[in-house]
């Protein structure tokens, strides 16, 4: 039972990695990162059900708060980059390249 939940969490995390690797649209990359956070949350909650211990729920709450903070900041950065470059391509955003 719990094994299936953990397997689903692994599959979702790997799909998130594939999204980050294969896409160049900055929105899709950002949402793929959110997908990986969600997969980690599912793992926390599943193991918490296995051990009948609610620490995993609290950790999932913390991850959601961090994801909300990350969303606010990342979207502000995306707006700024779009204003400066007029583009959504992650390859254009290589400002720190030496």
């Amino acid at each position: 039972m719990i094994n299936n939940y953990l397997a689903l969490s692994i599959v979702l995390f790997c799909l998130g990695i594939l999204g980050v690797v294969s896409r160049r649209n900055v929105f899709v990359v950002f949402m793929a990162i959110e997908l990986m956070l969600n997969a980690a949350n599912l793992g926390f909650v599943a193991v918490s059900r296995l051990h009948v211990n609610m620490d995993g729920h609290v950790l999932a709450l913390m991850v959601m708060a961090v994801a909300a903070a990350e969303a606010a900041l990342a979207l502000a950065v995306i707006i700024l980059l779009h204003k400066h470059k007029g583009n959504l391509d992650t390859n254009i955003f290589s400002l720190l390249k030496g």
Partner: protein
Amino acid sequence: MLATYLFFGLALLAVLGALGLILFKHPMNGAMSFVVTLISLAGLYALLSAKLIFAIQLIVYAGAIMSLILFIIMFLNIQERDLPIDSNRWFYLAGGIIVVAPIAGLMIKIAKSLPEEHPELIDGFGDVKTVGHLLFTEWLLPFEIVSILLLVALVGAVVLAGKRGVN
């Protein structure tokens, strides 16, 4: 076994939504299919009897964060010609699958080797009251740190995006 059928249905929806996210060309379509993934994950939390996490997943993730992302996507008014040319997307996707698939297979094998037991629930497992009690006793310091992090993110977002006359 209703719970098993529900699990497989929701898991299928979640994986299909994630596939849609990484395969759709326009970020709007990707965001809509990601909402499907988030809502089916909320259903899975309910199946795991995590009632508080279920509600917060629906309100914060599927509600607040996704509507913020959708708002920004619509705000930037992205047309078909503004999208980056993902010409070698399938090449990178194939490379990623070759790297990730063995690791995923190994980890799924490890997950399958866990004990199959399904322990009995204690009273009030995953309730607002019990999780909140845990949050304000054992996890008090991380909770305060997260509140400071949210404040910093709020101020940072206002400073970054609220500037007038950047050029």
